[in-house]
């Protein structure tokens, strides 16, 4: 299991290849990558991501452990950036490996749902005129009831 909370960019392709390398017992690999989207009006300058050092790593490790208890999985990867990001920058990724595709997909969705609402990250959208904290969405909290 690799959990990384980092300021630096990561290379999706290199991470995906490293994650997949040399595993002949898991037939299914799922990755999810989150990208900073521009605002509807197209004026996002920066996305700033604050986190709670110490707690963040613990929370992500706990979520990944829960996924591994719940599904028959091979390896699990979680990378999440903090600091200032521009539109188009990759914020985070998760990857799951499993013998069967259903497990790999479900575990990746589970990781994402919990990471959204239970890992201590907060996003702020900075435009030329304003800097607004992104509000948590009810649908993200509701997504947890599925599990």
């Amino acid at each position, binding site marked *: 299991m690799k959990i990384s909370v980092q300021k630096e960019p990561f290379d999706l392709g290199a991470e995906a290849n490293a994650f997949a390398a040399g595993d002949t017992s898991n037939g299914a690999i799922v990755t999810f990558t989150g990208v900073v989207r521009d605002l509807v009006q197209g004026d996002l300058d920066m996305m700033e991501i604050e986190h709670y050092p110490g*707690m963040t790593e613990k929370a992500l490790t706990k979520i990944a452990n829960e996924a591994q208890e719940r599904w028959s999985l091979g390896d699990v990867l979680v990378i999440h950036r903090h600091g200032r990001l521009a539109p188009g920058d990759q914020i*985070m990724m998760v990857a799951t490996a499993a013998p069967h595709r259903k497990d790999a997909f479900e575990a990746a969705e589970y990781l994402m749902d919990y990471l959204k609402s239970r890992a201590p990250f907060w996003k702020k959208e900075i435009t030329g005129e304003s800097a607004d904290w992104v509000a948590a969405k009810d649908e993200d909290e509701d997504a947890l009831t599925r599990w």
Partner: protein
Amino acid sequence: MDILYFAWVRERIGLPKEKVETSAETVSQLVDELRAREERYEVAFSDLSALRVALDQELSDFDASLAGVREVAFFPPMTGG
């Protein structure tokens, strides 16, 4: 006891971290003490349903006991991913 603030809670209170001497037994009692201090605390803690609390880096709730707790953090609902 260390108290940490994140995101808009940090901005409203105006600092990321402070040391507090308290005899509060629960998170709620601690919040009441903080609110009584100054307007900026009163504003930050005016709607507890918009806040989350972690005790020693584990999510908890406002009814929880502070016995043995060394670090309390207040923040809005998380928006990672």
